[in-house]
């Protein structure tokens, strides 16, 4: 049992699926809908997903949360389906369905028996264009979203801390706003806001259809032509140009206090390059670095120093937000041992980073990590919807199918020199936000 002391979103590449054995086929319809089919014939099950290239980072100013609110409203009926009927039909067919929103994408999926695929396509194509909303169903759903914010963010100091950190890392880019939205802006979202966003962004030429499972690719393409083919492309889809970050001129250090915190910690984040189409080498070097430096508990460079030798920390981890349309962050988390303050971890981390660059990469450790990458390509074949999700995330982050297929090899070809060079570029203090979560000092124990 790994004591994952905190739930942090960790982009651990050990969990990345591999692409080699699950055959991948692609096709694009005339109306612009891209299709990816991933074959897995072990069981008569299919995962059907539609990903839109739109998320919270594409929202108009002052309307934070509209992408996520709209995602909820997509279940509220079309010209031919009553509110809630979509899920009822999936349910009645023994399937499960859900949806998700992030900064760069909004996705809808069903898992269902393979012979129900056409029905799913028919309904998903329908709500791509024929959404019909009424005030009667839209109002209570806004309350549901506010309750979601209550439950996931406002009652959770770690989540509030995360929101706070984003506003410091991103001073101009909309990644600074929470996906769920700021409460005062959610409260004022209207049905018209949702419909405007829907009309602008929900169209076949802004979507990717991903089907994984026991299917024949040619049959999937034909069914997609039949059901998604008639949908009209939007003429409002332009290149995604979000406000970019200005040069960062000074390190940022912040302390977030909340009386409920019993497990204080430090997070250091750097503004970091993401995987880019045809150019994934820098991101690959940082992804491998995250594993070497703090990825695997006591065998990692930072874990060995702080947890085993100094005993100043109980646990460490690192992650790289490599799947992202615009540059994102590289993060390092340190949980201090009892008797140590989170603020004390800052110098220790800086010393460890310097030592890592001075000592160079441990060749055996790098080889073990690459072995894990190769093994993870095999384990990944066991996770059908996991592979589908990775394609969806990559394609909505500006990557191609080719980039996804190449990624394990790009990781595998990372050298010690690549890592040292990438880390040297990464750890410019001006690009950093160092943050401490703690209880107010007077009541801290």
């Amino acid at each position: 049992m790994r004591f994952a002391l905190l739930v942090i979103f960790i982009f651990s590449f050990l969990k990345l699926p591999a692409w080699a054995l699950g055959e991948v086929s692609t096709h694009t319809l005339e109306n612009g809908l891209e299709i990816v089919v991933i074959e897995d014939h072990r069981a008569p099950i299919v995962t059907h997903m539609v990903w839109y290239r739109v998320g919270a980072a594409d929202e108009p100013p002052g309307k934070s949360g509209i992408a996520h609110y709209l995602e909820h409203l997509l279940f509220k009926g079309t010209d031919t389906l009553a509110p809630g009927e979509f899920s009822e039909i999936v349910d009645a067919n023994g399937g499960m369905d859900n949806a998700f929103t992030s900064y760069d994408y909004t996705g809808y999926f069903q898992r269902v028996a393979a012979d129900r695929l056409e029905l799913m396509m028919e309904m998903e194509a329908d709500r791509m264009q024929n959404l019909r909303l009424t005030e009667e169903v839209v109002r209570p759903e806004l309350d549901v979203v506010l309750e979601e914010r209550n439950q996931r963010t406002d009652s959770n100091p770690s989540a509030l801390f995360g929101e706070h950190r984003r506003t410091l890392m991103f001073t101009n880019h909309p990644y600074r706003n929470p996906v769920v939205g700021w409460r005062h802006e959610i409260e004022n979202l209207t049905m018209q806001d949702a419909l405007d966003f829907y009309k602008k962004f929900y169209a076949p030429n802004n979507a990717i259809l991903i089907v994984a499972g026991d299917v024949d690719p040619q049959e999937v393409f034909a069914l997609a032509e039949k059901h998604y083919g008639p949908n009209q492309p939007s003429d409002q889809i332009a290149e995604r140009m979000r406000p970019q970050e200005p040069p960062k001129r000074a390190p940022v250090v912040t302390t977030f206090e909340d009386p409920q915190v019993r497990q204080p910690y430090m997070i250091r984040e750097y503004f970091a390059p993401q995987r880019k189409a045809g150019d994934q080498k820098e991101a690959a070097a940082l992804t491998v670095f995250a594993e070497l430096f703090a990825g695997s508990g006591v065998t990692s460079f930072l874990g060995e120093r702080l947890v085993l030798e100094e005993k100043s920390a109980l646990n460490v981890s690192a992650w790289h937000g490599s799947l992202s349309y615009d540059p994102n962050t590289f993060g390092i988390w340190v949980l201090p041992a009892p008797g140590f303050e989170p603020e004390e971890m800052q110098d220790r981390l800086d010393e460890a980073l310097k030592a890592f660059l001075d000592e160079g990469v441990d060749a055996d450790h790098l080889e073990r990590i690459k072995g894990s990458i190769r093994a993870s390509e095999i384990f990944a074949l066991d996770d059908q919807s996991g592979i589908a999700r990775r394609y969806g995330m990559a394609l909505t982050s500006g990557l191609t199918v080719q980039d996804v297929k190449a990624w394990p090899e790009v990781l595998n070809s990372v050298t010690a020199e690549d890592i040292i060079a990438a880390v040297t570029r990464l750890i410019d203090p001006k690009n950093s936000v160092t943050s401490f979560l703690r209880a107010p000092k007077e009541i801290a124990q």
Partner: protein
Amino acid sequence: MKQITAVFVAIFCWVAPALAAIEIKELKTPGGFTVWYIPEPAIPMISLEIGFRGGPLLDPDDKAGAAYLMTGLLEEGAGEYDSVAFAKRVEELSASFDFDATTEAITISTQFLKANTDEVVELLRLSLNEPNFDDVAFARVKAQVQSIVARRATDQGDIASDYFNSVAYANHAYGRPFQGTEQTIANLTQDDVRDAHKRSFAKDRIYIGAVGDFTEAELSDIVDKLFSALPETGGDFPDTTEFAAASTTHIVEFDSPQSIAVWGHEGIKQDDPDFFPAFVMNRILGGGGFGSRLTEEVRVKRGLTYGVSSYLASRDLAQFYGGQVASSNDRIADAIDVIRSEWKRMAEGGVTDEELEDAIRNMTGSYVLRFDGNAQIASILRYSQMDNFPIDYPANRNSFIEAVTKEDIARVAKRLLREEDLFFVVVGNPEGLEAEVVTRN
């Protein structure tokens, strides 16, 4: 949408053949172990799922948390390996070991490449049979557990369930958090951890499921190598117990914009002849997400919550029927009113033909979706044994659900659901709720 309505009646024809295709085999090894398994040569990997009944339930009260801490130490060094050497060896072999303690079991999930079988089996054998529990790792992992327990003490959801259990099972191991408390963890020693190891791992409480690229002889060899050295028996199990909370509402004050409520009363045993009717009834009342009455009434119609659900908690030694909801402080009282009236409506009126049909169609149709990958299937094979199901249960499970009638549900609803007996715990600063404000024990 004529077309759509027309197709979904065909689902029954499909379900049975799909599950029949998943044929579970049983193996008795020379060492005396029973294994449920499915060969899956498509990927050169092996998924092994092991469960030991009891786990934290076997801790004495003053040693609560010992089994949890012990489980966390299993990957921290064994045989000639210290914790770093052990971790490096796992990395070299590209294996994944997941040791986990839950309320009443310890589980071990492993995945490894077929090519590394011998080395991985040896490492896993060492970690289970010869863990070091050395000073350094003990101090470090104990501090990690203390940190987790400290965080749980300010987590609203954990406070709610811990308080609920402490009242419902006041004089039983179910009444305490299996992770232990700040006091019990602080006092644990390495000897306590060694005792927990002796209590937990034994031949009379092990359950094994396996899926992957192996022959029966290879699997048999793996299992006997791993477990032959285990003792015949371990710690004594506590007695069965009953739900002891009175019908009242307790408020645990907590500074948060929302309140979390958990509720429950006595439940139904898994081997009760009416368990399947209760199972289907729960799906309709609050177990099925969208489409369930609670979600429809509390979330969809009134927007009072993001999530509400009910569940049958049928454990080895006790059972309750309950649920959970979160609402803002000014609306939680409304949410609880709606939940109470739905509890009553089901007890008095049962379900409609249409609700029953929908529930059966979904529950039978979606069952196959759980058989999603080797690791997932191996874990189903493991827990089906721990639930005392026969080996043909996965093949027949849908027919038990299809056999449930409206009359069955009316009967079990009347017997099981007693709105007037419900015990509610509300953690937050709820407004307009008649209840007793308590302090945490």
